[in-house]
């Protein structure tokens, strides 16, 4: 006899709000006059805020036949994902109008991807995790190809889709192998099954393939090669959003799978994750040195940041898990902010993508340049910004383990951060000391929403840097969750 699974719809209220608003926007777009698309933006933002408010206060629980869990990691992960989604909405409208790409589906896709990241944070089952991963990924493929008249954007979408599908196949195959060995896809059952018997070959291979699927989403070396091409070709607001939301989804999932579910087998995967982290930090930072395109530089920078984040996952202690979430929250602000600065600029009908385009920005738009410099300083990890607090948390947790590996990772992290100061500060230097473009080729586009996004992200970066307690006191529940295991 089959008992129907317990369904507790109140548990998924935040996701339902986001997806409901997405449907509403989809429908309303059919009837709304183009000049009234502002309502769609307003509705999306209202939905995100409402969902974040609910998600921050929702009680713990497990439902949907044990496939869905709401706990500390869900709470923090969803709030961060919703913050990134809200910022993703804010940076878009002016750009979309400017290039005549303004269709309501854009916000539907952003909201759906956000819901995908939220579900990844709440997955208690590998199949559920796979579905959530695809819910996150497919809208991102479409967003990358959003500029339909632009061949580079089409190429970016296509590449992202092909390689993403390739990685998804690895992920699914990994699930199949694990199921074959243990007879379950539930993460807690997997934990107990693998704890009882020594892991066989197919289980080991399965875990390896899972790593690859998630590593692709997080753009870890050597699964990162798509990122620079996609970031360069995709429209700027889409890049600003995807660089952050994909990271949030991937790292929340990595925390779910490795420290939380497979914590007992830590000795089997720390080395792999550690080596991946080291490679990612080194390659990301070195490659960023040689870039002349702002977007490509930020693409490699985002790879490098994935490396720092992976140090936290590989460390796998409660403080490290909290530090990963702190890092994601701060990265959502500084990553989106750095791209938002580029959104405000235009060069002869296209995106202002060359680093020279930022020359003398401080003279023309002092506040924009100040914000840009702030984000770059924060990405470089210098105090008194949030980026410093984020890195400090991760590296401190790695050092605290007292192991040689942790120490080595922290050392690599600090040294590559030193390298990163060069390429970040080069742009900030150009902004302040460069000769401004006199031909009038580079134009400024200010819009209230974009300014709001810049203001929010800049304030968040400073606030997190000066009063880190405000962020860490929220994220530390993740560490508490891990230490209860």
């Amino acid at each position: 006899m089959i008992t129907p699974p317990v369904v507790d719809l109140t548990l998924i209220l935040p996701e339902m709000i986001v997806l409901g608003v997405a449907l509403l926007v989809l429908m309303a777009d059919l009837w709304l006059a183009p000049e009234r698309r502002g309502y769609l933006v307003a509705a999306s933002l209202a939905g995100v805020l409402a969902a974040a408010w609910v998600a921050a206060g929702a009680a713990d629980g497990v439902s949907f036949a044990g496939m869905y869990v709401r706990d500390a990691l869900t709470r923090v992960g969803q709030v961060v994902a919703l913050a990134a989604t809200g910022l993703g909405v804010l940076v878009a409208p002016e750009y979309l109008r400017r290039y005549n790409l303004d269709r309501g589906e854009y916000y539907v896709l952003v909201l759906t991807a956000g819901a995908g990241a939220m579900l990844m944070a709440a997955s208690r089952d590998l199949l559920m995790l796979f579905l959530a991963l695809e819910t996150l990924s497919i809208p991102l493929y479409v967003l990358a190809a959003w500029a339909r008249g632009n061949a580079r954007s089409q190429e970016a979408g296509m590449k992202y889709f092909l390689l993403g599908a390739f990685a998804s196949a690895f992920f699914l195959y990994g699930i199949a192998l694990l199921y074959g060995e243990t007879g379950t896809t539930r993460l807690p059952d997997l934990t107990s099954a693998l704890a009882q018997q020594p892991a066989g070959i197919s289980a080991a291979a399965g875990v390896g393939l899972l790593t690859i699927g998630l590593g692709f989403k997080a753009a870890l070396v050597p699964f990162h090669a798509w990122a620079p091409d996609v970031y360069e070709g995709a429209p700027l607001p889409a890049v600003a959003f995807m660089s952050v939301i994909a990271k949030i989804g991937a790292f929340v999932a990595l925390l779910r799978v490795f420290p939380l579910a497979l914590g007992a087998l830590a000795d089997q995967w720390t080395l792999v994750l550690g080596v991946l982290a080291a490679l990612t930090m080194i390659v990301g930072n070195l490659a960023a040195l040689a870039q002349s395109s702002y977007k490509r530089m930020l693409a490699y920078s985002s790879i490098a940041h994935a490396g720092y984040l992976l140090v936290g996952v590989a460390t796998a202690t409660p403080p490290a898990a909290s530090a990963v979430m702190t890092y994601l929250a701060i990265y959502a602000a500084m990553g989106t902010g750095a791209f938002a600065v580029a959104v405000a600029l235009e060069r002869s009908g296209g995106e202002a993508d060359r680093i020279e385009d930022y020359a003398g920005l401080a003279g023309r738009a002092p506040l924009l340049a100040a914000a840009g410099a702030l984000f770059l300083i924060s990405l470089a990890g210098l105090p008194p910004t949030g980026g410093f607090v984020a890195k400090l948390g991760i590296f401190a947790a790695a050092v605290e383990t007292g192991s040689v590996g942790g120490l080595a990772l922290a050392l690599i992290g600090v040294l590559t951060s030193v390298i990163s100061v060069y390429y970040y500060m080069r742009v900030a230097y150009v902004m302040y000391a460069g000769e401004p473009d006199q031909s009038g080729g580079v134009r400024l586009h200010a819009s209230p929403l974009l300014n709001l996004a810049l203001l929010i992200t800049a304030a968040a970066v400073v606030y997190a840097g000066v009063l880190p307690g405000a962020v860490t006191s929220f994220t530390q529940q993740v560490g508490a969750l891990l230490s209860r295991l």
Partner: protein
Amino acid sequence: MSFVPLILVWPLLGWLVNGLAGRRLSRTVSGLVACAAVGASFATAALALAAYVQASAAQAASAAEGASQTALSVIVPLFTWLGAGDLWVQASLQVDALSLTMALVVSGVGFLIHVYSIGYMAHDPNVSRYFAYLNLFIFAMLLLVMAGNLLVLFVGWELVGVCSYLLIGFWFARPAAAAAGRKAFVVNRIGDAAFLLGLFLLFTALGTLDISEIRHRVGELPDGLRLAAALLLFAGATGKSAQLPLHVWLPDAMEGPTPVSALIHAATMVTAGVFLVARLDTLFLSSPAALVVIATIGALTAFYAATVALRQHDLKRVLAYSTISQLGYMFVAMGAIAPAIGIFHLVTHAFFKALLFLSAGSVMHAMHDVIDVRRLGGLARTVRWTAAGFIIGGLALAGIPPFAGFFSKDLILEHAFALGMASGNYIPYALGLLTAFVTAVYITRAVALTFFGVPAEAGAHPHESPPVMLWPMALLAVLSVAGGALGAHAAGEPLLRFLAPLLGAVEVEGAAAPHPPAAILMGISVAVAFAGVLTGWIVHRNRRDPSLGAMGTLLEQRWYVDALYDRSIVAPGHATGRWMAGPVDLGVIDAAVNGVGRLFAALGAASRRLQTGYARQYALSVLIGAVLIVGYWILR
């Protein structure tokens, strides 16, 4: 007492208004905003005092009869500042007898000096910047004295340093002012480094920086560690409070506007070192060796600075050395296990030294910035109120009864004598007594040369300062006369009683020393003070100023301490700097850095070549990665 943070908020608001909108405000509004901010702060502090007295009375009433009475200390948490690993810093304010006394002195004297500044700075073009700095200073100083955590205290400690630097160099277009600001900054760094090391040591040993926790737990520390921490923190105090050997910055700091000298470099900031010792009294009082060092340094500094003050010609420099000397007295009190007495002297000194500085500023105002005593004279006839203010301040400084300075100084000497009886170390007492004599001589000299005799330069037309400057001086004069009542035996010692539960509760070796015959000691110090005034008057009457021969040269050259520093530290430092900047930096470091840079650029370019743009190659790299990872997992 949730309103206590307001004490800090007012001056912060004043700083914001004057700092952000100052250029758009008229000078009157600017000054009024700044004064109102500090006045509100003082009023709030007074309310806090009332609430505190009430609360501690209630606590005393509820405590059982005969139970040991502990000092009430209210912690007002502000926010969790940062939490990383074991380091959780709760930013909080501590409300107790000591912090309230200091807050009242800082905001009260600060308020009077703010009012005075309206008149003194009336013609300065940057008056809003001046008031913004001054408000920021008040905020920082209040943060320092009310901090419940040593890290918060350190933030205030550094911030007052920054304000001091900005205000010394307020007229930064004058090279001397800019150089003086820099000197103050650099010399203070030396002390601050030691202070910071002390903080690290305490944190490593005790795992906390919370002040009341440290006060209660110092007993857990081994003797050596306790001594090291005490000495490191005291080294920080010598920097801020201008004690030997880090005293050299304070006389130069007189380049700043005179109200700044009165507020920062006499009444408040320089006493931060004394305050620090009192704040962590249990730490210092439980390390006998540290106490000997503190008392000795204090006594030596008191004597040294007083002798130098004998042969200074700049009126403000005389007062600056006098400040150094008086701070030395306060440290003697700390070293003689009488922190409450030290705080008492701190308070009376704030009154009379602020009065002296404001009077000196009034002289500058009257004489168009002439401050060299050799060019003054006879001012008592033309600027009577200013002269009266300076003389009252001078009498208090000289320790003539019944002025405020007499009571506090006498108590310090009494305790120094008791220290001698207990430990056989009579040096602090002897130097203290000698200093009392020299003090009376130099301040009498300053008075005689400035206000009496025949004016040195005809043609000057001194004019009395406006009421907005005279009223604050008048109030300070009243305090300089009556302030002694705070600690006078006859008046019931209200301040000492107030501080006693907090600072008097420490039981230490030697505290139970035989009590010296107080009346005899008091008689001696009164006699010495009168003798000093008389000597000064006889030597310097009719504006005579004998050069004292070789000894005079030695004193005028400040015992060659500054010259020694220049020769042995500053000049070699400059030379090392040039060598580092030239051959070492350009030849070695720069070359190495460039080489490393080129290496990484080449690596970056190489990695760029891997990025071909073909999706199939990217898929291949994913596959290779997959094979390696899965292979490792299977074969491990």
